[in-house]
Every structure is written in structure tokens, then in C-alpha cells.
């Protein structure tokens, strides 16, 4: 049995009286896509923020590659190999697509405090940035301002930036958000390719996408673990269907 690369025990986050995450357990093994699903407001995004270090948890243990990362800042966790995408695209709007990816390459390299060499003429940055932009299918859009990209292209840019981090784990928060049922073929293909790079914690609302990609699924309801199991088990679980209250789980 392989050791998980990411292991979370009892992650808890309160917002005032609201408990957004309530003792959530989760683990991610090398090579797998482990989806986290659940109705709106179940605490999925909050859980990703806890793992990424954007929220301070009320309690919980976070282990990454065997190390306790509880004391690391969000930037330190990203540098250590946790790359995330945002549910609502969050890119640098006045930068073009290439500059956005370049920033991610630079962040991963850890050499931000360099003052005299032009970043846009630095082959060490430009080479990888161009490559990752291409991997996300945006090679023709490299000089377009991020704010001028279409919604779908911004989703791709998010993934290009995560790729450019060359992470040990991807944390993807609804990569298909706003794309429509079934997701886009381009994005699904890109996501399928991602697992070759690193295991994925996939939060996704689109069940079709989840069942076509995920190896394991954890269902969260009201901030608590509801079920965790193989995609097959979860699909057949009658309680899951009930929890979704009419949301379609494909047979």
C-alpha cells in the first residue's frame, strides 16, 4: 500500500457560528484523481483553502509528502508543490496570457528577488512558460490580455499556471465552472493529461466530468465526510443520490 502524498485529518473551519468544514478527513495517493463533491455550500472550496493555507483552520492536521505543513504560509505551500486553481478565475488581468504563465514559472523557481535581468527576455522563464501555455491549448493566445480572454480560455490559463508550477499535487476547484454540462472537450482532455504530472484533488460540480475522471470520490455534506470510496461505489450508493436531492447522478 502506497503512502498518500497528501493526508488531512480532522480539518475544521468555523465562520462565526457556521461550521464550513467539520473534521474532514482526506487523503490523496500518487497517480490518482480523488474528487471531492457535494451540494453547494458543502465546504469544498473552504477545504481547498485550508489545504492551500489560505484559511487558518480551527483544528486539523495537514501532511504533505510526509511533512506537517500546518505552519507553512500559502506561498510556502505553493512553492513546496501544492498548485491550485480557483473556482472563479483569478488571473493577473493586465498581463497577457504568457506573462501570467511566466509569473507561475518564476514563482516555482523561487527566484523572484532578481532585479536586473529582463524577465521577458529570460529563456529560463520564457521556454517553460511557452511550453505550458501550449500544453493548456493557449499557444495562439499568448499575447492576449488575460482580461480579454474568453471564460473558457481563462479556465485554461488557470490550468496552464498550475502546470507551470510543476507541482507534486494539483488542487483544482471546479475547473469546469461555468463551462456547461459535460464540460468542454478541450478541458476534459487537458485534465485527463494532468494526472500524468501529479495526483489531483478535484472539486467539481459536473457529475459527468467527475465520473469520467475520478478514481476515488469523497462526498461532503454540510462540511462533513459523507462517503469516501471508489467512483463505482459512490455512484451506486443510494444515500449519495438522496444527499443530492434530485441532482442527477448518471447511471
Amino acid at each position, binding site marked *: 500500500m502506497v503512502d498518500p502524498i497528501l493526508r488531512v485529518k480532522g480539518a475544521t473551519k468555523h465562520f462565526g457560528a457556521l461550521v464550513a468544514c467539520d473534521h474532514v478527513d482526506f487523503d490523496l495517493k500518487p497517480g490518482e484523481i480523488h474528487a471531492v463533491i457535494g451540494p453547494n455550500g458543502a465546504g469544498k472550496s473552504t477545504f481547498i483553502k485550508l489545504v*492551500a493555507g*489560505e484559511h487558518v483552520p480551527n483544528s486539523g492536521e495537514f501532511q504533505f509528502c510526509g511533512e506537517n505543513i500546518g505552519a507553512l*504560509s*500559502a*506561498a*510556502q505551500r*505553493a*512553492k513546496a508543490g501544492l*498548485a*491550485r486553481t*480557483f473556482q472563479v478565475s*483569478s*488571473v*493577473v*488581468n*493586465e*498581463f497577457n496570457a504568457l*506573462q501570467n504563465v*511566466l*509569473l*507561475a514559472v*518564476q*514563482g*516555482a523557481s*523561487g*527566484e*523572484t*528577488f*532578481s*532585479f*536586473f*535581468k*529582463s*524577465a*521577458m527576455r*529570460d529563456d529560463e*522563464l520564457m521556454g517553460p512558460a511557452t511550453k505550458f501555455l501550449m500544453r493548456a491549448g493557449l499557444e495562439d493566445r499568448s499575447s492576449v490580455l488575460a482580461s480579454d480572454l474568453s471564460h473558457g480560455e481563462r479556465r485554461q490559463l488557470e490550468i496552464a*499556471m498550475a502546470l*507551470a*508550477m510543476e507541482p507534486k499535487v494539483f488542487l483544482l476547484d471546479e475547473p469546469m465552472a461555468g463551462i456547461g454540462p459535460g464540460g468542454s472537450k478541450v478541458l476534459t482532455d487537458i485534465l485527463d493529461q494532468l494526472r500524468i504530472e501529479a495526483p489531483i484533488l478535484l472539486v467539481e460540480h459536473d457529475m459527468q466530468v467527475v465520473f469520467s475522471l475520478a478514481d476515488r470520490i469523497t462526498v461532503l455534506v454540510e462540511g462533513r465526510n459523507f462517503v469516501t470510496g471508489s467512483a463505482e461505489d459512490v455512484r451506486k450508493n443510494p444515500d449519495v443520490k438522496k444527499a443530492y436531492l434530485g441532482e442527477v447522478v448518471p447511471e
Partner: protein
Amino acid sequence: MSITKSNAINTLLIAGLLFAALCAHVLSEPFIITMATKIAIFAIAGIGLNLALGYGGLVSFGHAAFFGIGGYVCGILASHARNFEPLTTWPFEFSGTTSMLVIWPIAIFVSSLLALLIGAISLRTTGVYFIMITLAFAQMIFYFAISWPTYGGEDGLPTYVRNSFPGVNTLNPIEYFLICFVLLLITLILCSIIVNSRFGLALQAARQNVRRVTSVGIDVYKVKLVAFVISGGITGLAGALYTDLNRFVSPSVLSWHTSGEIMIFVILGGVAHLFGPLAGAALFIVLEFVLGGFTEYWQMWLGALLLLVVLYAPKGLMGALNASWRSHG
């Protein structure tokens, strides 16, 4: 905007300043040379602030602190050297200096150090709180300077003659102008290099989207703090030059008016435009001169102009110039 056209405007601006000073020299108009020198010095101060405000989005209302401290470093070092009273006797005796080449690095160092202290605390806040806390720090130093009698207190500290620079008669207006002009060029080049570096990329990204920059593993607080320190150092250098221009330094350089003026250079000229502070400082000084000739209330007209710029040309003078050139060219 095409790069060559914006370059042409920049070149015109910098060449215009040099040309004006040289003409004034030929026509024996030292007052005009002094105006040109003031423009160069204020432009340097503005370039310093622009790095924080324009590129980093750090709206500091306390840059008078750095300008003033740079000015006082210059004044204090010179006054000790002239009075033969050692500034320190331990761990080594330092009797002050009248050499600009020593004064500048010390002015830059001290104002950067101050920026590190002020920045380290202020950058824990954002928005209006950041504006207020930087203002508060600067006011603290202002009141301290007023109440501390050793260096003249409220009356200020005269330095009588300009400090020295090897091979230059610094008291000759055109020669002192050329010193400031060359430093302006160096500051512009340095700033353009920094802005295009990895650090510059991270700084500009951090202005737009802190969460995103953090998520690619960059410590935004550190990036902003370093920018604030460089910014303070550059503005401090300008302060030292200003003391030498006037042969006098007083607490007024530390007052919030100075912070406001430096901010006006940046906003008038064009935020996050490399040459914006130069355009803004030039416009400000010329307007002060022209309007000041007509009316005592020139600052009201300046205020009106500032309002127009903010409302109708948010990218400042440089933004407007570049746009009109593009539509006509």
C-alpha cells in the same frame, strides 16, 4: 501604443529639460536653471514614489519622511563637517562630510532603513489604513524634527555652501543641474530595469491580484516591502539633492504637503508610467511659476487641474499624450 512613439515622447521630455537648462545658461537666467534642477530632483522623488504607488499599488501618503530624512542626512553631515564637531566618536570617529559621493549613499541607506521600518508595519494594512498609517509615521517624524533643537528645530538647518563633487563647481547653477540631471537619467534607467525584472513582474502582479501571486509561491508581503524600501531610498536621494539645491533644510520638507506634492507629480504625470513623474514634476513647477505670477491662489487652479486629470485622463499626462499621438499619427 507603439513603443517607438512613446519612446519619442519620453526622449522629447528629457531632452526638453536639458535644452531648457542649457538655453537658460546661455541666456544667463540662473532662476530658470534652478527651476529645471528642481524639476529633475522632484522627478527623482516621484520616480521613487511611483515604484511603490504606480507599480506596486502602495498608496503612500508618507513619502515626505524619506524625502525629508534624505534632506536632513545631507544637512547634518555637512554641518558637522563644517563645525568640526564629530557626529560620532564610537565605534569610530566620524566627523561628517561635505562630499556628495559620500552623502548620497548615506542618505539612500538611511532613508531605505526608515522605509524598511515604516513599510514593515504599514504593509500589514491595505487601502485607506495604509494611506493613514504612512501619513501618521511621516507626521511623527515631522513633529520630532520641529521639536528637536540640535539641528535647528523649527528654524531649519542652513548648510551655507553646496557640498562638493570631484571636478565640478557645484555652486555654478548649470553644473549642479547637470549633476541632478545625470542622477535623474540613472534613476530612470535603474527603474526601467527593475520594472522589467522578475521582481518588477511580481510587484506589478501583486498590485493586481495578491491571491494569485501568493498561489504561485511568491511572498507578496516581502515583494511589497522590498519595493517600498527601494522607493524610500530613491526619494531619500532626491531629498539630499534638494538640501544642496537650497543650501538649507527645514522641517517643511517632512510635512504632509511634501508627501502630497510628490503624489501629485506621479498622478499628474501618469501612474505606473516610467516618465510620468518627470512630466508631472515639470508641469507642476511650470504651473507654479506661471499661475503663481497671476494669482496667489494658484494652488486652487492646480487642484482643479488635478481633478480634471483624475476624471478625464486617469493615466495622467503621459497616458493622454500617448493616446493623442496614436490617434493623430
